[in-house]
């Protein structure tokens, strides 16, 4: 399996709070993708962080990558109700042009 400690988990927070989701992976990757999946839809990329980047920001999103510990995190600042979704991280196998998804975090933001 590509994955280590990440398990499907459910988080419930109040609107306006900050939240961080973590994932760890077992095999080498040059990039970590973070996707969100809304109910009844396919995943959509929200942020991508390369192995030569330690941090990447996009609006209220912040991704980090620590290649030495093979872990990545996604933080959302001042969460809003529309952030309610399942968030997945995915690593890439460059040899096969393939992407492996972790189990995801189901985030619910309560108004």
């Amino acid at each position, binding site marked *: 399996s590509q994955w280590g400690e990440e398990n*499907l988990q459910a988080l419930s927070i109040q609107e306006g709070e900050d939240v961080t989701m973590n994932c760890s992976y077992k095999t080498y990757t*040059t*990039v970590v*993708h973070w996707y969100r*999946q809304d109910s*009844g*839809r*396919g*995943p*959509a*990329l929200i942020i*991508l962080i*390369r192995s030569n980047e330690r941090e990447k920001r996009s609006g209220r999103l912040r991704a980090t990558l620590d290649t030495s510990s093979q872990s990545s995190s996604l933080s959302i600042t001042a969460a809003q109700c529309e952030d309610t979704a399942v968030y*997945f991280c*995915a690593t*890439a*196998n*460059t040899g*096969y*042009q*393939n*992407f*492996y*998804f*972790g*189990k*995801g975090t*189901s985030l619910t933001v309560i108004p």
Partner: protein
Amino acid sequence: GPKVLQIPSHQIIDMGQMVTLNCDPVSNHLYFYWYKQILGQQMEFLVNFYNGKVMEKSKLFKDQFSVERPDGSYFTLKIQPTALEDSAVYFCASSPPGTNTEVFFGKGTRLTVV
């Protein structure tokens, strides 16, 4: 933005019958994927496809599964025969070359085997 279209959105089929799931990938993409997701669970990789060939397949890609993209048209996943455990949502995806690019997903086809 670019869209991956999947047809149909829901299909119900009797166990043991054949089913073909159709995907219309983004037009200039070269890599195609199928993922399986059971409700509330992880996206599980099934297979990826490039230049008319399967590049990699997972253990979930049983002998009853096959993929093809005849004449550059739909990218299809065929299951023959189907089993009850094949019930899931199947997502098709496509991407340009390189792993630093976005993978675009369709909305999925919900397959129910009865």
